[in-house]
């Protein structure tokens, strides 16, 4: 065996892997990691202006970790974008800002508040009002403004029956809509990224991951997450069968009483429609056990937005949702 060119390697002034991102090589779901990294590289090579959609949730955190790993030691060759409803959890904003700061990322914030202020969307009213659906308009406007031609998302096929149908590279027409009846065939892993001006692609490198794969990967690699994923005490109110956190857009209605409960979040979305689950899981390994034993899906347990109808996700996706 020939000796490697050590002289050349010593030129590298490599920074140690970021502590927040952990070590990808330790992942227990290695094949899924390789598949995801390959998709991220391929879409980046084939498209001109990709962007990574980052919500601060666990799936987008894994996606970001893998995107950085796909291009290390070079810089991430695209920005990340947060579609901000202004109703996210404070812990998630903190997490986002510290990651951006630590990793030197380019962050684009697409603001739902701005869409409301400029009249692009009309804020829902009433006790069940949510900015969740408004995000689609803000997202599509931002994609058009920045001329993004591909948006990476952390969506997984095991999340929801409409997502279970989606391609890894999913075409969006000029209106941003998804037509589930006319999806492009996707043989093998040969990805077709051809689009016309004004159209764009959504890329889902984590399509084949399950919730348990995500947690098992997080536990084995040491990826840091927002603190609300772990058990903590919180003032909540029980509404529509879900435990909603008091604060931000959620205030007590007549007849409701709040109480303090030990909870954690299985998904991270808008405070107005993301429910907490009762849990004592304070560390990631306990969460892996809890997820393995779960008998209710994560969205079923925590998302009021999906409970509105049996095709809620499909309907939102047709409008351009994540």
């Amino acid at each position, binding site marked *: 065996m020939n000796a490697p060119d050590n002289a050349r390697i010593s030129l590298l002034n490599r920074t140690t892997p970021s502590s927040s991102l952990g070590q990808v090589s330790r992942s227990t779901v290695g094949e899924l990691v390789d598949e995801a990294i390959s998709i991220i590289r391929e879409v980046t*090579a084939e498209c001109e202006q990709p962007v990574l959609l980052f919500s601060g949730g666990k799936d987008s955190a894994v996606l970001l970790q893998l995107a950085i790993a796909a291009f290390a030691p070079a810089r991430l060759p695209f920005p990340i974008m947060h579609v901000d409803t202004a109703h996210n959890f404070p812990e998630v904003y903190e997490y986002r800002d510290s990651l951006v700061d630590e990793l030197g990322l380019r962050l684009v914030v697409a603001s739902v508040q701005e869409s409301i202020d400029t009249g692009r969307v009309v804020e829902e009213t009433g006790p069940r009002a949510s900015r969740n659906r408004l995000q689609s308009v803000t997202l599509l406007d931002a994609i058009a403004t920045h001329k993004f031609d591909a948006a990476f998302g952390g969506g997984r096929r095991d999340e929801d029956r409409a997502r279970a149908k989606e391609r890894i590279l999913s075409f969006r027409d000029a209106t941003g809509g998804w037509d589930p*009846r006319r999806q492009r065939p996707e*043989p093998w892993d040969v990805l077709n990224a051809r689009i016309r001006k004004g159209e764009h692609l959504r890329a889902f490198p984590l399509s084949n991951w399950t919730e348990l794969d995500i947690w098992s990967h997080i536990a084995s690699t040491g990826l840091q997450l927002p603190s609300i994923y772990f058990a903590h005490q919180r003032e909540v109110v029980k509404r529509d069968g879900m435990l909603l956190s008091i604060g931000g857009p959620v205030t007590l209605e007549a007849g409701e009483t709040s109480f303090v409960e030990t909870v954690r979040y299985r998904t991270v979305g808008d405070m107005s429609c993301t429910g907490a689950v009762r849990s004592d899981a304070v560390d990631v390994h306990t969460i892996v056990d809890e997820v393995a034993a779960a008998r209710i899906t994560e969205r079923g347990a925590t998302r009021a937005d999906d409970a509105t109808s049996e095709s809620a996700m499909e309907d939102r996706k047709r409008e351009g949702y994540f």
Partner: protein
Amino acid sequence: MTTTLNLTPTVATAPLRIATAGSVDDGKSTLIGRLLHDTKTIMEDQLASVERASHRYGDGSFNLALLTDGLRAEREQGITIDVAYRYFATPRRRFILADSPGHVQYTRNMVTAASSADVAIVLVDAVRGISPQTRRHTYIASMLGVSQIVVAINKMDATGWDREVFDNIAKELNEYLASLPRQAPTLTIPVSALHGDNIVDASQHTPWYHGPTLLDFLESYAPAPSNLAAPARLDVQWTLRDYTTNFRAAAGRLIGGSLQLGDAVTVLPSGQRTTVARIERGGEELAHAVAGQSISVVLADDIDAARGDVIVAHSDSHPKTATQSVVTDVCWMAETPLREGDRLWFKHSTRSGRATVSIVHRIDVDTLKAEPVQALELNDLGRIELALSEPILATSFADQPETGRLILIDDRTNTTAGAALIV
């Protein structure tokens, strides 16, 4: 409904990828639903949702197919339009299940499902027997190179568990399979997806059947191990550069074999030789990499290796020269027919360009006869010759699947119109 824990976080091996195939109404979605139900991998809220939908779209009896028919149009029409992916695990193994549509008009979606499958489960309705669509799907699964075919002869309960019915269908389909250009090992199982016989639990109705249940077989099935003695090949997807440290690495997914630090390699098509100075995966250094891993490689010498280039370990079995002409078996998936002389985009691994088509023949999937034709219509299977504007380092699909396949893209719509396998 009571359920028990059966997901095991320690199951760490790569998931087995399975796709269903077969005619419409042969029970593909019901079979998947049964598999999920009997392995207790359906969550309570999903069960509740299927129960609600069963009342809305049916007679109220629990409809297993509604577990995978997730689109509104599918639930309304009671058919599968596009592939649904489902994930489940038993204590022995993790699985990715792709449930394919049976309708002829959605054959392209079945191609999508079967292309990434290790195992194809071909369903046959025991009462109606083998249909042209059964043969088409079987042909496609075999053509796409699945390594195992399981024929599940379904609705056996409706025949009164008649062994003769089973034997006749099995014989007919096995004869068909044996006459296909590409053979895959085949197992035939009598089942009732509706009632669960021989899916997870062995049936009381088939004392004459001595083989495994479907789940037993899937749990113990060992796909042919990837050949680590095969020569390694890295099709460069992207060049990683850090200008401040003058760092440059070629990134891609390793195909075939393994690559070690210090290995002698050639960069193609330039033919320049060098050695491997550094291997990384996920930003961390490796001493050696194996097929399937997404890695980056630093070469010892300052040689250009950019997207479209290929880094190969020294070996006689790699193509040394690129070709601009390939003969392929193709499944045509666009509404617009493919005609002699048509020009399209192609994509092979990391290379794209123009392809000019010359049609060799069309295969009649019933008789398996090759017929001379002027055009391939939607869902036709045939053989075409492609003249390429860009040279590619091709292998035959049989030698190395990853570099023996390409897609054809329609100019006018940008849709993926053809799945082609190099002969």
